[in-house]
């Protein structure tokens, strides 16, 4: 290429600065999002992996059975580096006025365990010389402002036993403080973890270890070993076996990580597609308007390859200017996001690395998108017939009756000006299609992110209002009788109370097992709604067990099938599946008290009471009154959990706000370019209309109507595509932990559509302003405008 062509390229770009800036910004955003989200994903993955290796995070955890025998058996298995027993107990804690159902985990004194080590953040590790000294997990320590030297109480048997905080620790098992897979979301007022000397934990757990934690060579995951060990452990009476991947905290964090990974591809692809289409529209127009120049180039001896390279330059330049800084900003942002995230979640190890492949990949992504966009018009340019091009014979504009006039014949009688509007839509079908795709992509972006908010809001309402209808759960220090529960009704502010029994179980069918909790409810319970997958809201069946819908596929079972329910002590009963329920949080099992008592042949106690408040009750005062009762271990106010989730929603609003901004920018870039070209192509027509006496307002009205018509055509498609994209995104987050059934409020569709119309209106404003600057004498005299 010769230098004057370079100059021409730069001057052309300068002349169409707003359009090229729009393309460049869209490429920049796409590449930045890719760099930031993909490197964040890699950094977080590395942080989790390093944390797991550094603290010997168990590859497999076995609960129940003969722990000593299991430890002895698995210790011999090749590939197992460490296996050790420990005692874990869910017991009440008392901190001043607060009682909560916490977890005590036994650790050896004086030295860290081989598996599931902890990071001592403040204070000191456990010591044999301090048998009542404990380590508090940092989420609990932060919430209750616990520091070394502080004291609180743990319920041992029926007595409160005072312990002293020796240190505050972080643990790979509780980065996300989940009680179990069925209770992923907890509040610090209801759940906390304490690491105690093994002797104390044994005392709390009933005298014998109840868990075996196993670490493979170098901590590497090995499915074959896991499958083999699971079989061995079950043979020795284990009631629950879970891998690192299934471990509650890790599983919750994995969902988050998956989100980063998907975001790293989904959003950049959308942005780069939009940028590519905007570039295509712009460069095609340039080539069209420069046909005589191209003819002159070729006639004067430029090769077609030189012409091709020249017009590829119109893609290369915005591609480079957008993707180079985009990649750098993305990679730098990833560092901040990683640090922010690991700080927020208190991940013990933060790995922030430079991944050259991400940088190169991000630049390549941006360049490929912009070069691909330039390729088609550049090829057209290189194939221009020089003689015809120099004569200025551009292909004649197409004229035909619009589809809508053919479908609605009365429209053929519309004023000519409005027919011009209708036919303008089909005048350049490819550009119209690209503008529509721009609208569709923008709506997708908006609905995916906004749909997430609506879905979570809806799921929370369903979980905490329609399913969990109790206002609070009262946990007893030891199994209580139904009459103990009834006594709660004597307390002012308690409108109703139902006994409930929660037992950990393993559901077995077709050779598969699923560990969960079985909730025994009153036969005519009014505290828990059951939403059947097939029948809508149902009453608790008299016979059979009701299971969470995830078990359907996990255990390959249907309604009417028999399942084995194995309790923690190894006792097994068989029951029939009465129904599957759709619950947003967790995958629980439910059974009526009469059915459970019939199966076990005994009268069952209550581990908790589900209570409903009287109208106008002071819930804080009621909480204090009930917590003071000696038989009460903890009081869980359902509203506190609900409010906590609502607070998390603020983060989602921020996320959606950013995505709306980005979606708006993307829509603006594409619609702005399409509309600018649309108006530029009409310059001669506009000038002619002005010359014959049409006023500028009317012309602006016609152009606006045409542009809005195109935007409006994209909206229904965008809403449908956006719905399915959002559904797919929500499905990818669904598991047995969360059932993310997409729900989008009707008003969301309306607001999203209005937002797009607004962006389209704003996008055409610069073009409409240009109409005011049109010089009629110059334009009408030009051969081709």
């Amino acid at each position, binding site marked *: 290429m010769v230098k004057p062509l370079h100059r021409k390229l730069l001057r052309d770009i300068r002349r169409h600065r707003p359009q090229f800036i729009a393309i460049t910004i869209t490429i920049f955003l796409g590449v930045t999002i890719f760099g930031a989200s993909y490197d964040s994903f890699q950094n977080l993955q590395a942080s989790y992996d390093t944390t797991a290796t550094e603290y010997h995070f168990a590859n497999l955890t076995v609960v129940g059975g003969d722990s000593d025998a299991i430890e002895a058996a698995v210790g011999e298995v090749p590939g197992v580096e460490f296996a050790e027993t420990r005692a874990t107990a869910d017991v009440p804690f008392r901190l001043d006025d607060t009682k909560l159902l916490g977890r005590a985990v036994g650790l050896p004194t004086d030295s860290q365990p081989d598996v599931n080590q902890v990071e001592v953040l403040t204070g000191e590790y456990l010591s044999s010389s301090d048998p009542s000294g404990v380590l508090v997990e940092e989420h609990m320590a932060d919430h209750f402002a616990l520091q070394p030297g502080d004291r609180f109480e743990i319920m041992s048997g029926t007595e409160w036993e005072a312990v002293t905080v020796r240190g505050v620790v972080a643990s790979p098992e509780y980065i996300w403080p989940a009680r179990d897979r069925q209770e992923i979301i907890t509040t610090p007022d209801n759940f906390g973890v304490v690491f105690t000397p093994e002797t104390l934990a044994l005392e709390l757990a009933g005298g014998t270890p109840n868990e075996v934690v196993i670490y493979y060579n170098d901590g590497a995951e090995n499915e074959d070993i896991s499958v083999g060990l699971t079989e061995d452990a079950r043979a020795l009476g284990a009631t629950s076996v879970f891998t690192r991947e299934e471990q509650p905290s890790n599983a919750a964090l994995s969902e988050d990580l998956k989100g980063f990974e998907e975001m790293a591809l989904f959003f950049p692809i959308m942005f780069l597609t939009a940028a590519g289409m905007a570039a295509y529209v712009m460069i095609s127009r340039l080539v069209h308007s420069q046909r005589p120049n191209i003819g002159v180039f070729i006639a004067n001896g430029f090769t077609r390859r030189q012409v091709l390279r020249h017009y590829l330059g119109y893609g290369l330049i915005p591609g480079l200017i957008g993707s180079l800084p985009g990649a750098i900003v993305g990679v730098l942002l990833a560092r901040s996001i990683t640090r922010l995230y690991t700080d927020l979640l208190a991940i013990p190890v933060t790995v922030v690395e430079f991944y050259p492949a991400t940088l190169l990949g991000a630049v390549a992504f941006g360049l490929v998108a912009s070069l691909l966009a330039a390729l088609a018009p550049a090829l057209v340019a290189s194939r221009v017939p020089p003689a015809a091009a120099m004569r200025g014979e551009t292909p004649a504009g197409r004229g035909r009756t619009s589809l809508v006039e053919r479908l609605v014949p009365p429209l053929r009688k519309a004023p000519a000006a409005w027919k011009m509007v209708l036919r303008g839509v089909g005048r350049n079908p490819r550009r119209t299609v690209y503008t529509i795709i721009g609208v569709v992509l923008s709506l997708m972006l908006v609905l995916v992110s906004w749909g997430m908010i609506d879905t979570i809001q809806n799921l929370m309402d369903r979980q905490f209002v329609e399913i969990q209808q109790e206002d609070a759960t009262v946990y007893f220090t030891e199994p209580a009788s139904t009459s103990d529960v009834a006594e709660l009704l004597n307390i002012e502010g308690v409108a109703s109370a139902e006994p409930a029994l929660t037992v950990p179980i393993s559901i077995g069918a077709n050779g598969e097992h699923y560990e969960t909790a079985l909730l025994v409810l009153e036969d005519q319970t009014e505290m828990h709604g059951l939403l059947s997958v097939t029948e809508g809201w149902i009453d608790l069946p008299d016979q059979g067990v009701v299971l969470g819908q995830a078990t359907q596929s996990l255990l390959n079972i249907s309604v009417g099938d028999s399942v084995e329910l194995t309790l923690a002590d190894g006792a097994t009963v068989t029951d029939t599946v009465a129904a599957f329920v759709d619950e947003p949080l967790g995958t629980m099992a439910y059974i009526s008290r009469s059915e459970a008592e019939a199966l076990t042949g005994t009268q069952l106690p209550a581990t908790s009471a589900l209570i409903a408040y009287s109208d106008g009750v002071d819930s804080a005062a009621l909480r204090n009154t009930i917590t003071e009762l000696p038989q009460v271990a903890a009081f869980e106010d359902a509203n506190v959990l609900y409010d906590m989730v609502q607070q998390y929603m603020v983060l989602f609003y921020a996320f959606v706000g950013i995505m709306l901004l980005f979606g708006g920018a993307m829509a603006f870039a594409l619609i702005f370019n399409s509309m600018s070209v649309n108006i530029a192509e009409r310059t001669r027509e506009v000038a002619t209309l002005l010359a014959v006496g049409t*006023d500028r307002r009317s012309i602006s009205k016609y152009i606006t109507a045409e542009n809005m018509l195109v935007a409006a055509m994209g909206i229904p498609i965008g809403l449908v595509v956006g719905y399915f994209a959002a559904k797919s995104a929500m499905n990818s987050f669904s598991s047995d932990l969360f059932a993310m059934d997409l729900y989008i409020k009707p008003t969301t569709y309306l607001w999203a559509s209005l937002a797009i119309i607004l962006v389209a209106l704003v996008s055409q404003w610069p073009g409409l302003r240009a109409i005011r600057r049109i010089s*009629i*004498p110059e334009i009408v005299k030009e051969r081709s405008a």
Partner: protein
Amino acid sequence: MTIKMAGVWKTFGEGHTAVHALRDIDLTGPQGEFTVILGPSGSGKTTLLNLVGAIDDATEGYIEAAGVDLAELDIDETVRYRRENVGFVFQFFNLIPTLTALENVELVADLTAANGAERAAEVLERVGLGDRMNHFPAQLSGGEQQRVAIARALVKQPPILLCDEPTGELDFETGRMILDLLRRVSRELKQTVLLVTHNAAIGDMADRVLKLRSGEIVDDLRNDHPVAATELTW
């Protein structure tokens, strides 16, 4: 008097780069007169036409057309002046490609009358396109397109018809036919016509011939025996 110009200057640019497209033009154009303006490129022909059509402003001087002082018009009045008084015929036709011949004419007819479609059809019949009125511009020959453009200019029945190189894109036969049409129709409608061309032979059909050079009128000839357009040769 339909057109009156006195001491009109049009200057592009300023200072050393200033170019005087028109210099001190004095001109009167009585109603119904067919004037051909001749001159080489850059002589100011089109500029003169643009000033009368109010699609450009004079730098200095007085222009009155159809009884209106053009310098006194605001934006809306200028639009109204063009809408009611001026018809344009351009060299490159400038038709809207997405509208049929009829609709192109109707578009302009709608600006001034309620029964636009009817009137547009009448005018197209008059210019000999009765059987082509539902064709799109791309389906018409150059001559036909120019006839549509003329129909578009005539449909408002403006007192002033401004034609800028109307035969520039046409072959000899078609060019003669278009000129004949213009002469015939403008005579019927008693229109004042200013026709710009660099083709001196066309002057033979005019009532009056103005010759411009470097922005000045260098000749103003009366033609008492204009020939029919069909008799022109070049």
